[in-house]
């Protein structure tokens, strides 16, 4: 298992923009949506042989690497409990994910047949993963101008050829400094874990997690 942060010097900590929102089209019905795009890049002289795609990058080759991930989320949510000051809702949605990882390097590279590669070699792997998600959300109005919000969304599958899933957890505090705008602080964790995926009698595994603090502004209408 290659660990990009260790093997290719991708940054472990990085900042990025995130956006999300909802449209409430009835007393209890919502459409939630969100979008996150993260692009990370690294550059390192390879200090352990590593195979990626058609190439093996040997010790001493200079490698540029990237790991991009994009999450576009949409769901339907329903308030099954509305009592002042609490709302509890359940959701069903789709997280459309794109993950692209690649290495471009020069020097000391061999291809899948063991032949030495002259010049630059680039190998990239892209994945589009539409992941269905089920969620549970709590909104609690702590006062007339502040709301505590938390939700978790998850999906897990266990079949003979694939086992894995994803979970998202969010905890946020909104403060409405004017009627139509709020500032907030929160914590979010996204975790993908695919411990088994069998294709052509080969077992593959994949794991990726992001977590951190966020600051944001919200407009409300």
């Amino acid at each position, binding site marked *: *298992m*290659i*660990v*990009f*942060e*260790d*093997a290719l010097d*991708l940054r472990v*900590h990085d*900042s990025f*923009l*995130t956006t*999300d*929102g909802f*449209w*409430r*089209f009835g*007393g209890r019905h919502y*459409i939630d949506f969100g979008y996150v795009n*993260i692009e*990370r890049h690294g550059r390192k002289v390879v200090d*352990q*042989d*590593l*195979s990626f795609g*058609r190439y*093996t990058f040997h010790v001493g080759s200079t490698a540029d690497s990237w790991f991009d991930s994009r999450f576009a989320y949409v769901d339907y949510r329903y308030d099954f409990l509305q009592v002042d000051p609490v709302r509890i809702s359940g959701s069903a949605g789709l997280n459309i994910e*794109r993950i692209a990882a690649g290495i471009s390097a020069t020097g000391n590279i061999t291809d899948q047949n063991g032949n030495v590669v002259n010049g630059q070699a680039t*190998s990239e*792997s*892209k*994945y*589009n*993963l*539409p992941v269905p998600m089920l969620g549970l959300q709590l*909104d609690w*109005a702590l*006062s*007339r*101008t*502040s709301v505590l919000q938390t939700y978790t969304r998850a999906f897990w599958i266990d079949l003979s050829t*694939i086992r894995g899933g994803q979970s998202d957890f969010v905890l946020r505090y909104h403060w*409405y400094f004017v*009627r139509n705008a709020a500032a907030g602080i929160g914590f*979010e964790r996204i975790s993908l874990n695919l411990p088994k*995926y069998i294709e*052509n009698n*080969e077992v593959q*595994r*994949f*794991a990726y*997690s992001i977590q951190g603090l*966020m*600051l*944001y*502004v*919200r*407009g*409300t*209408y």
Partner: protein
Amino acid sequence: MKCLIVNYRRIVPVARGGSMSRMLRCLSLALALGAILSPPAFADFPSGIPDRLQLGIGGMQGTFATGERSAHPTAGLA
């Protein structure tokens, strides 16, 4: 000498970027039209704060972990 091995296959190749982009554009258009044309919501939350439509944008300081830091010499993707 250690050798890190990565399999190079799609995990779940079920969608293409072009069709996904079209679907996202259609969803965005439907959402915008619905928000504009629908009647106002009637139960502001918290009281006095409208909640028919909310949009938020923020910055996040993330910590990343890609792959697993355990030794599995014959499998993996990162």
